[in-house]
């Protein structure tokens, strides 16, 4: 066959060219299909986010993120918060007494701040620079309280990996791709 091709180089060229444009067409088709096959769900970019209704705050977020300081942080849904004096998202299960002392706090990094609003209400805010997304407070709050504390991927930190390595390690499958223009799944109550 080698000889054959030598005699008539032209044919070989034509064959290859045909193959080439065939392949080109194929690629085009692939791309077209991939993008425009389903017009109903928009083909805009997606980002990773935690569905707070599914998340069990197992703590994997703190360690499985490709970033050393995880992109997942705790967030506070003020609308759901009860502003409790004795908040079990802030205090350990057995607080020695009710004050902001480190010995009473639940958060290992002290990322939650407790401030007096008015008798008997206290406001709780999260210092993101300290939060590492371990979800300990989330458990505390959802066990005893309203579940106002919950974990979310913070997109100022997230690298939006093609496959989120936390998602791969998420025991409850709470991670999902969400459209980039609605990058958060916020907890909120539906009352006016």
């Amino acid at each position, binding site marked *: 066959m080698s000889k054959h091709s030598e005699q008539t180089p032209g044919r070989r060229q034509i064959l290859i060219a045909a193959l080439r444009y065939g392949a080109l067409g194929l690629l085009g088709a692939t791309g077209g299909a991939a993008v425009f096959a389903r017009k109903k769900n928009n083909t805009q970019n997606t980002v990773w986010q935690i569905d*707070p*209704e*599914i*998340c*069990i*705050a*197992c*703590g*994997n*977020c*703190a*360690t*499985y993120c490709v970033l050393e300081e995880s992109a997942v942080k705790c967030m506070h849904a003020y609308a759901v*918060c*009860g*502003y*409790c*004096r*004795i*908040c*079990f998202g802030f205090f350990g*299960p*057995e*607080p020695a007494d*009710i004050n902001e002392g480190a010995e009473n706090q*639940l958060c*290992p990094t002290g990322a939650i701040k407790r401030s007096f609003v008015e*008798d*008997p209400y206290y406001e709780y805010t999260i210092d993101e620079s300290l939060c590492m997304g*371990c979800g*300990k407070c989330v*458990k*505390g709050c*959802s*066990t*005893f*309280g*309203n*579940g106002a504390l*919950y974990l979310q991927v913070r997109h100022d930190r997230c690298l939006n990996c093609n496959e989120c*390595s936390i998602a*791969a*390690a*998420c*025991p*409850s499958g709470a991670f999902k791709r969400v459209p980039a223009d609605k990058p958060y799944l916020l907890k909120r109550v539906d*009352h*006016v």
Partner: protein
Amino acid sequence: MKMNRRLATANTKILIAGLIAVAIVVAVIAVVRFDTTGKKGSGLGQEFIYDVGELGKIDPNLILYKESAPAINTRFTKCRAIALAPQGTIYVAGDKAIRKFDESGNDLGEIKLADAPMCLTIDTDGKIYIAMKNYVQVYGNPPKPLATWQNLGSDAVLTSIAVSKNDVFVADAGNRIVHRFDKTGKLSNRIGARDKDKNISGFVVPSPYFDLAVARDGLLRVTNPGQHRIEAYTFDGDLEFWWGQFSAGVQGFCGCCNPVNFAILQDETFVTCEKGLIRVKICDPEGAFVGVVAGPEQLVEGGPSRVSEFGPASQAPGFDVAVNTSGRIFVLDTIKNVVRIFTRTSQKNNSDITFP
């Protein structure tokens, strides 16, 4: 000279080959040890783990009751409240209906409702008062709708209802107040609004659990979960006294807002119900801790350490409780949607209770 160089190159080649081999082995090991699926769990230290297991353990000597009959399956997907008719029929409110059972769990019929009921109570004359999210409906006996009372506005979240001789009291968690109606549904007054000179601190209700009942001493008992109290009011709204304090231990009320529900036994002792660490306890009329009906071990599959493992799906379910004249306690398990029946065991292990 030339030989040497060739030898040298040969040696280096071998060396490099060796190094590469090592590198490959290391790489393979790294890949194998690389845990992508989280099966090793988060390698977080002990202090990052939230565990109320120890806290939830209850000294068996303190447990005065035992589950005495098979639990009644309510067949609701989300049951809300339980109440007992004076003659002992069990009424359970859930989804969009009321179901009636006798103590051995036989189904005695169902009342379909247009709205999801939040709570209910049964009057001596057999009338059923059902509170929806923000209005009250009265059903006769046999059950047919008699009246629908005024809507209390979009902020109202009615979580408990009780009847006395000629009043109906409705606990409104949304407005943190108790409404007092007469039996025709006319609003006569409001109880428990914040009031300095009556020194009423007002109800603190962080979550929609806000219970009340009329005691035999003619006073209204209302929970104040945010303050971990049960407060006693006259029908006209004067705060008489209150009891209850926060404590992680078994003799107080644990968590941010407890008790969530309570019932009053014949002998005026209280059966209180806590969420979070799900406990049903007995307190005497002055609020002193007497003993435990059931703790997480008895009420939660997997025991206390599983309490915080529910995930938000069934987070902090508030159990409801009702009692009958013979002292049986009916606990509405809102996780499994069943009614658990407890009776008091022999008094003897009651005596050797030692308080920590």
